[in-house]
């Protein structure tokens, strides 16, 4: 039997005349579509996106666009090649029939597929009180429209901006406000900005950056309510410490929610933490069985990573979306033996208060941190995170050219603390410190699976999405 004879030609048929549907017309969806065409997929390709725009780039939205240096509608992603797709833009996917292999759309249409790629990403977590969230002057920042609206509000010169949440997006917004000369208050529930992503040692540096740049930073507080004036404009926010902040613009920057609701009841392993998939991007159904024809990529995917104890990681990283889309597209068009795992080492960057921040690995896994180069006080350093005697992540502030080295060390499961000397080692880096991440034992919002039935023959699984 020849190699070609070992399968039934289904893959060749798929490549020639199959139907591939991509739900999610952003970075991951577009890059996957390009890869599929590159790999010779000649069948029909449909891209479904709930926004009316062709795929655009998000990193500039919280930086250049807010500063007024770039226009939101000029952030379209460059195309690597023509993809000859049937675009269904401005229409959300509303349901999935796995058995019939059909995606249902918001306008009542149904699209059939032989292979499905889900890249629906995340959306901004809204203000929990919808009425308060609907006040004029209250924003979130995720989409092009969000950025345009917020940019206009900032350009109007509000007396004060309140940013709720000091993660990366919140910090970048605060930075843009200061650069525009606006008074800004940042309210953060944790003890410091960026503390969830980089821990308390680095968070303290971030806090200094905020304060030195004139941000009114309030940590350890929650915004309990937003108050509007009679015309329905936001005018103030009330904080858990009893204080009130008067602000004309409020930006809710409380992280993201994964766009998986449309899959409720479909039987796919989708929930608030994303869609679980194997290392090859094939989605799991709720029984924990891997599907053959449904793949996931980008922010919405949750996949196990060999380097990090096979933890299921969901990463909201630009580079992850590109790499995972590429792997998913490759695997969708490959025999099982030719499939590749998605082993991208997590990496992200941010730019705030004139400082370039970059990270590799998974800092929140780290329990210890060592400043290996430079100094915290100068805000120019490289720091390594350790976990059970291993180097698990690294972060640099204005020092990113060394990062490839740390990435290599992480890939090689190098020991922590590092055993070597480096250029620019300072007293800061004499010994490891506790990395000081917030207590991870807070309640999670994960979904629940319950088993019911009396015998293995009628055992059923019930899936209850998290709140």
């Amino acid at each position, binding site marked *: 039997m020849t190699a070609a004879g070992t399968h039934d030609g289904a893959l060749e048929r798929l490549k020639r005349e199959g139907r591939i549907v991509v739900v999610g017309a952003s970075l991951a969806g577009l890059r996957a579509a390009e890869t599929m065409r590159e790999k010779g997929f000649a069948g029909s390709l449909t891209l479904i996106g709930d926004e009316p725009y062709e795929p655009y780039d998000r990193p500039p939205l919280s930086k250049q666009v807010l500063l007024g240096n770039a226009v939101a509608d000029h952030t379209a992603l460059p195309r690597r090649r023509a993809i000859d797709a049937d675009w269904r833009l401005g229409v959300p996917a509303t349901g999935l029939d796995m058995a019939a292999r059909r995606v249902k759309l918001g306008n009542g249409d149904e699209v059939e597929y032989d292979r499905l790629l889900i890249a629906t990403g995340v959306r901004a977590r809204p203000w929990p009180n919808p009425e308060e969230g609907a006040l004029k002057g209250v924003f979130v920042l995720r989409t092009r429209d969000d950025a345009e609206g917020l940019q206009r509000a900032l350009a109007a010169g509000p007396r004060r901006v309140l940013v709720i949440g000091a993660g990366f997006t919140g910090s970048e917004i605060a930075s843009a406000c200061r650069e525009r000369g606006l008074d800004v208050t940042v309210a953060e529930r944790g003890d410091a900005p960026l503390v969830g992503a980089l821990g308390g040692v680095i968070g303290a540096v971030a806090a200094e950056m905020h304060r030195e740049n004139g941000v009114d930073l309030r940590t350890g507080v929650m915004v309990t309510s937003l108050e509007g004036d009679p015309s329905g404009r936001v005018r103030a926010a009330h904080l858990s410490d009893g204080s009130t902040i008067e602000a004309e613009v409020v930006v809710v920057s409380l992280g993201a929610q994964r766009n998986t609701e449309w899959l409720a009841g479909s039987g796919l392993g989708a929930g608030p933490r994303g869609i679980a998939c194997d290392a090859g991007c094939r989605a799991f159904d709720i029984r924990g069985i891997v599907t053959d024809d449904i793949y996931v990529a980008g922010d919405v995917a949750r996949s196990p990573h060999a380097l990090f104890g096979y933890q299921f990681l969901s990463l909201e990283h630009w580079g992850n979306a590109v790499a995972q889309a590429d792997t998913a597209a490759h695997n969708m068009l490959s025999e099982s033996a030719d499939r590749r795992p998605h082993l991208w080492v997590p990496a992200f960057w941010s730019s705030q208060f004139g400082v370039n921040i970059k990270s590799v690995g998974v800092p929140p896994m780290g329990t210890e941190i060592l400043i290996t180069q430079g100094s915290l006080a100068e805000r120019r350093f490289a720091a390594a995170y350790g976990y059970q005697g291993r180097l698990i992540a690294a972060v640099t502030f204005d020092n990113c050219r*060394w*990062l*490839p*080295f740390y990435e290599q060390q992480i890939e090689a499961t190098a020991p922590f603390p590092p055993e*070597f000397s480096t*250029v*620019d080692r300072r007293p800061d880096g004499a010994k490891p410190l506790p990395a000081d991440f917030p207590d991870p034992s807070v309640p999670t919002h994960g979904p629940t699976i319950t088993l019911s039935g009396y015998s293995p023959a009628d055992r059923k699984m019930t899936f209850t999405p998290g709140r």
Partner: protein
Amino acid sequence: MTQALLREIIDYANRANPYPLYEELRKTPVSHDGDGPYVVSTYYEIHSLLHDPRISSDAKNLKATGDDLLGDQSDEEGTTLPPSFLKLDPPDHDRLRRMTNRPFGPPHAPHRVHDMRDELGGLVTGLIDGIVETGQLDRIDLVDQFAYPFPVSVICRLLGIPREDEPRFHVWAETLAASLDPDPDADPTQRGQGSMDARMELGMYLAGLIEERRKNPGDDMLSQLATADGPDGAMTTMEALSTSALLLIAGHETTVNLITNGMLTLLRHPEALERLRNDPDLAVPIVEELLRYEPPVQLLPQRTTLSDIEVAGVTIPKGASVWLMLAAGNRDPKRFENPDRFDPDRKDIQHLGLGSGIHSCFGAPLARQEAQLALSELARRLENPRLLEDPPQYRQNSVLRGPRHLPIACDGIRP
């Protein structure tokens, strides 16, 4: 074995085509014997060492080995100038490079290089017109008549060196560039003295100029270095001196060689030259491929290990001298398909020609723009250009490698 191979690479007899020797060298990614340096010749190993904080560029970390014939010639010791940021580690390197970058590149001076385009175009036009005026199109020395004067004028204008002083500069710069060559046959004492004198004279000259610019600053880089007052404070006079000396020397030989190696390669690949003539935009990918295929800086001979580090199965001990063979890495078949092929259409071209990491070429944007302009204009204006000698006569230097003369002929020069 390694020593013998290194000697061959340094040997002038092999200057015209060291690539077969590099191929031999790559068989052992990290090679070493006796007291010689650890020579790293494969792409991935070089690339990772360029980002490795366990590697120092400061010669002070080098453990003296006494009879190291091929080792670094520390020609700067005992002279009046402190080491430039090229030979420093962070944080000193970072501070000086940052301060130097303020008047040169983004974010503070994003337009500087771009805005020089018209001036560069004028220089190129003037030099080619000058060739027409000689009336001798049957023997043009592309180095003396074009590739050398062009970047030298550019760096002098960038720094704000008075034009009448340019000729003095050529002599100093050439002496100092030559001192980078680890030629085992040269008399080290004599050469050391020559380069020391040149550094001294150059330093005195620049000191005078800096003094003058402090009083009457212009918008040239020397004025800006002399009067810098950013978040990093001001440069000391000595720092401004060694930094401007570095810019001047680095701006000399390297771009000359990029342009000359470029024309030589294009004349050996007439189809690429023809395409460039019809499409000046092709200069962008052509220059990138040239930086891979014939890099002006062939190797970096002045790195040192701060710890014992393992590279490709070899432990390089602390304090060892490490040579990074950029030109060998650029032709590593594990990294590039058909690496010995000059291919202007190559898409995957993350070459080592400008280094990488914190010491990556400071002048890269300027060098690229100069080479793109020079090559596309030469392609456009020279009618039926051809090589008169192949290979041409090379410079002695094995580090900054390029032809000393490039005699060509052409049928005419288009307006």
